[in-house]
């Protein structure tokens, strides 16, 4: 099995998802309008009490802060749910009996979701720039590094949740908790510094905070050196969560196969 063959498989996974997705035209329209109206609605929230805190910390307007947070929140949401989407029991069995590696299967099933999320992020940012005067100063290298680390970390978390789902066949508590963490402590709608100390601690031990903080600095003209402490913590979390997530997912898959419950949903 050559690298070229595996890359080609990834391309066909993406192509499959792209074609499937493009047939849901109404859904695409709804998603685009949700993004547009979401951006318009939240942009008006710029006049809140956290304005000052945002301006002091990030040296930007609250509108820019909020818009970047919401835009990149779609990446986190995508990463959290993508592995779950791959565990449709019927397709899973069909792919598992083919000579395809588990990693190829997961990566291949993920790409299209991120391509689409990138489009949504672009819509958010374009609206911000053209309609609300948001000024972006993008550190491209830094942004790509933060994105890579953040997406990988959240795929790791998604693998833990999906692994549990393969065994329990019910809810995925990990992704559900992480969604709450993103909303409340993820530095999306307001900086966690605005929270009471007890809640602030939760923000500091969860990955969404570090991802959002780094990405916001990278889009508002800061240097990589200035975010290094947060970036290092994000990288450390990534290094721990990705292998642990993969191991848990693979173990749960193996256990379900052993028990003969893979196609029970």
């Amino acid at each position, binding site marked *: 099995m050559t690298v070229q063959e595996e890359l080609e498989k990834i391309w066909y*996974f993406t192509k499959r998802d792209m074609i499937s997705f493009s047939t849901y035209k109404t859904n695409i329209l709804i998603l685009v309008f949700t993004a547009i109206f979401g951006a318009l609605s939240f942009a008006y929230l710029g006049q809140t009490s956290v304005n000052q805190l945002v301006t002091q910390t990030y040296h930007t307007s609250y509108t820019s802060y909020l818009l970047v947070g919401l835009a990149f929140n779609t990446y986190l949401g995508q990463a959290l749910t993508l592995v779950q989407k791959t565990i449709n029991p019927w397709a899973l069995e069909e792919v598992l*009996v083919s000579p395809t590696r588990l990693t190829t299967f997961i990566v291949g099933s993920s790409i299209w979701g991120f391509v689409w999320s990138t489009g949504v992020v672009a819509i958010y940012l374009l609206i911000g720039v053209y309609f609300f005067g948001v000024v972006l100063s993008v550190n491209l290298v830094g942004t790509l590094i933060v994105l890579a680390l953040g997406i990988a970390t959240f795929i790791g978390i998604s693998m833990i949740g999906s692994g549990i789902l393969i065994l329990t066949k019910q809810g995925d508590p990990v992704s559900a908790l992480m969604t709450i963490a993103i909303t409340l402590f993820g530095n999306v709608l307001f900086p966690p510094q605005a929270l009471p100390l007890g809640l602030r601690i939760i923000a500091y031990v969860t990955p969404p905070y570090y991802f959002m903080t780094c990405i916001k600095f990278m889009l508002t003209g800061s240097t990589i050196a200035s975010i290094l402490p947060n970036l290092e913590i994000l990288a450390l979390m990534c290094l721990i969560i990705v292998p642990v997530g993969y191991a848990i997912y693979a173990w749960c898959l193996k256990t379900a196969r052993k028990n003969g419950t893979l196609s029970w949903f």
Partner: protein
Amino acid sequence: MPSENAIETINLTKIFTSKIPNGGGFFRRKAVTVNAIDNINLTIEKGELFGLLGPNGAGKTTLVKMLCTLLPPDSGTALVNGYDIVKQQMQVKRSLGTLFSVGERGFFWRLNGYRNLEFYASTYNVPRQKRHERILEVLKLVGLENSTFQLYQQYSGGMKRKLALARTLLPDPPIIMLDEPTTGLDAITARNIRDFVQHTVQETGKTVLYTTHYIEEAAQICTKIGILKEGKFVAYDTPEALKAKIKKDELIYLAVEDITQPQIEKIRSLKGVVNVTEKAEEEPMPGQRGLSVELQSVDQLPEIFDFLFEQKIKLVNFKREEPSLEDAFIELTKKA
């Protein structure tokens, strides 16, 4: 590793454990174990069309899933095309094409037939240069050449099953496993699939493991049959040999004219006649009677014919009755 046999299982065992409620208390559960596959030793030679029969829950699908590496064995192992299903999974997967009983659910409903097969061709490493040609080839083989670019969701049940069959053939594997490929299909589609499988074996020399509930289906196309019950083989032979196993006495059918009840009684008392029963279901013509005569041996037949001749009883029909494979199936699964 080339091998003489296509499939060989060695003391293959799969035990499922489940927890069931155990009397009072919401949380009280007891573990129940089921030997889904119980120490099976099976050999399927290359080029054989092997039928796997068994009642519901006998372990047919479990065995198929173990052979295609989806279910790991609890003990023992199996060799597929000479490769171990535990230690050499990738080689096993390359040697096999598997059609699951609900195989059509692995397809993507918003893609057309061609795009679905294109995706699976990549997962099975069908060379890119040959992919297009191969997809069109297998679609034609299963009779879907006119529905190539039709959306999968618009396919009928038979077309979906045919596409699943096409996917199984796509990588051109030496061994094919078909788990109940005709279940739920109309008689014509089922027959087309059976004919197709039989021709494929004859023309390409592929080995096929064919599981089915339909006994006569297996009798029609399989060169060898294994009957599975509660995870164990209760019989394993050619269809003819299986029928012969339950054959106790010779059974002949006679349709005769102008026979009286005392004459029937006389036949019953002839040497070597075990029993004579009237067979109303054969529906002889008016004035005729159908008799089923059980003989110890076919050597007693001349004596019966002599008697009919002496008594001037007109013989209008005669046939030797063979037990069906269904009789064998019922008899053998009852015995076990």
